[in-house]
């Protein structure tokens, strides 16, 4: 089993967002950057599959500036074997990012290429299935269960009102959702080992793409709500508000 995991460096989800970059980007000052939480599920899946198979290779691939190397090391500390840093700036267009990744992955001989379901910064939710299309590979998105046997993958994914069960032959592209597994924490030994694992740097050029960010703004505040009262005694006032003001009952 040769498995690639594509990861992205993102602001911590608890970070306070302030707008900078001429009103099109966040101000990175004081923001802690982490591995995209959904990519951790992909990393865990890759390591666990290799462990179960008893052989194979796991590779982290990340497109970004040099800061992404810190994030890559996290995955090596978790247990990934080696990494490739595609050195360049990402694009606001998921397809442009997907093209860079696909160009690198093509011919790599991977049985599985794993992604997160979405990146918690741009909420693009597209790079994984786009790479699959570009490589003409089977693809399942937002999987919450995975079994690999006899050259094929069986996955589950949550859809509205049910769970979809699907199969596809390998090689395949999968994007990972919460529920798939519980990502391991890198131990001290892993962190030490990660420093010595191979990290190849490949300069790349991402095209601008057809999506252009016009602006980034803070969401409109919800109009101030009100406390209608305390305890069960407040129920009539709430019902009155829901009936005549909000008109939702």
């Amino acid at each position, binding site marked *: 089993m040769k498995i690639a995991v594509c990861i992205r460096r993102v602001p911590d*989800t608890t970070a306070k967002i302030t707008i900078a970059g001429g009103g099109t980007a966040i101000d990175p000052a004081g923001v802690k950057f982490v591995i995209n*939480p959904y990519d951790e599920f992909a990393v865990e899946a890759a390591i666990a599959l290799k462990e179960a198979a008893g052989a194979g290779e796991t590779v982290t691939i990340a497109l970004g500036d040099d800061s992404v190397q810190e994030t890559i090391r996290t995955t090596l500390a978790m247990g990934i074997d080696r990494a490739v840093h595609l050195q360049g700036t990402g694009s*606001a*267009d*998921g*397809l442009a990012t*997907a093209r860079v990744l696909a160009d690198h992955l093509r011919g790599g001989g991977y049985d599985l290429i794993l992604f997160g379901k979405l990146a918690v*910064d*741009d*909420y*693009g*939710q597209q790079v*994984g*299935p*786009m790479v699959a*299309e*570009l490589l003409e*590979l*089977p*693809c399942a998105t*937002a999987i919450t269960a995975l079994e690999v046997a006899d050259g094929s993958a069986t996955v589950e994914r*949550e*859809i*509205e*009102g*049910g*769970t*979809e*069960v699907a199969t*596809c032959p390998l090689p*395949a592209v999968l994007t990972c959702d919460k529920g798939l597994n519980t990502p391991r924490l890198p131990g001290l030994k892993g962190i030490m080992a990660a420093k010595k694992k191979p990290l190849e740097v490949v300069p790349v050029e991402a095209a601008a793409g*057809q*999506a*252009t*960010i*016009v*602006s*980034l*703004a*803070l*969401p409109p505040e*919800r*109009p101030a*709500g*009100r*406390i*209608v*009262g*305390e*305890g*069960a005694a*407040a*129920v009539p006032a*709430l*019902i009155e508000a*829901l*009936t005549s003001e*909000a008109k*939702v*009952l």
Partner: protein
Amino acid sequence: MTAILAILEQRDGALRKGAPELLAAARQLADAAGATVDAIVFGAADMAGLDGLGAAGADRVLTATHADFAQYCPDGIVATVAALAGGYRAILTAATATGKDLAPRIAARIGAPCGMDVTGLALQGDAIRVTRPVYAGKAIQTVDLAGTAVIAVRPGAIAATAAGKAGAMSAVEVPAFTRRLTVREVRAPEQATVDVAEARVVVAGGRGLGDPKHFALLEELAAVFGGDAAVGASRAVVDAGWIGHGHQVGQTGKTVAPELYFAIGVSGAIQHLAGMRTAKTIVAINRDKDAPIFKVADYGIVGDLFEVMPALTEAVKKARG
């Protein structure tokens, strides 16, 4: 490029409920561009319920029939849409699990930009300008998509309208395609319940419930709304195993935009808010008057949920007659 294509979702021969909303979004673009709206439905056999689509905004209803379409078949849908794509200025799906699976595949196949979870859309010169929440809803991005754009519209973002179009039916050819992914089955949840992402009313509970058995208090309130309501949950109680992950609302759970959202014993952590802050009306019940949930709630009651919930359920029952 004079038309907008809306891909409507179908399961087991019946249209999913987001169709009128999606057609309204398509109509909005089409009317601005002087274009027409085509709806397309994929199924294994004749499909029911298509005659109302004209009234909801479709000038034409295209049907694509193939034995493989008995289950969701992304490879077949992508091939069919790609063969038609040249004639469209925009291709719309609903931002459901299925729509979000489909949109980026189509975009990559035809070399188009893809906007996901879009809450607003308009023409901007040669581009389509969309707005969409990013950073877990902590910011709103405005993006111009050039060329034919593939757009997944967030359910609940654009209201259905009456358009009174012809909705003339026409069959389209499904080109030869390789089925790379095979959906074997759709397993229904243990209890047949409304999905939180589709419900008009969500009654969500958090750690304040104290014990999984107290979800019964929420189910009783939800039951008053009949088949319109679903029980939601915070991640804290999902992780504790009190209720299934399918109920989780928030950044790592589902994004919901119901008309009415009850947050019961939920503190209102930023990751929870990410999933529900666009609900039309939010009601919070929490014994801590400083709980952050009160900052987004339209109406709040400070108090012990065990005291408030039974009274609330009774009162809602009465109010709804």
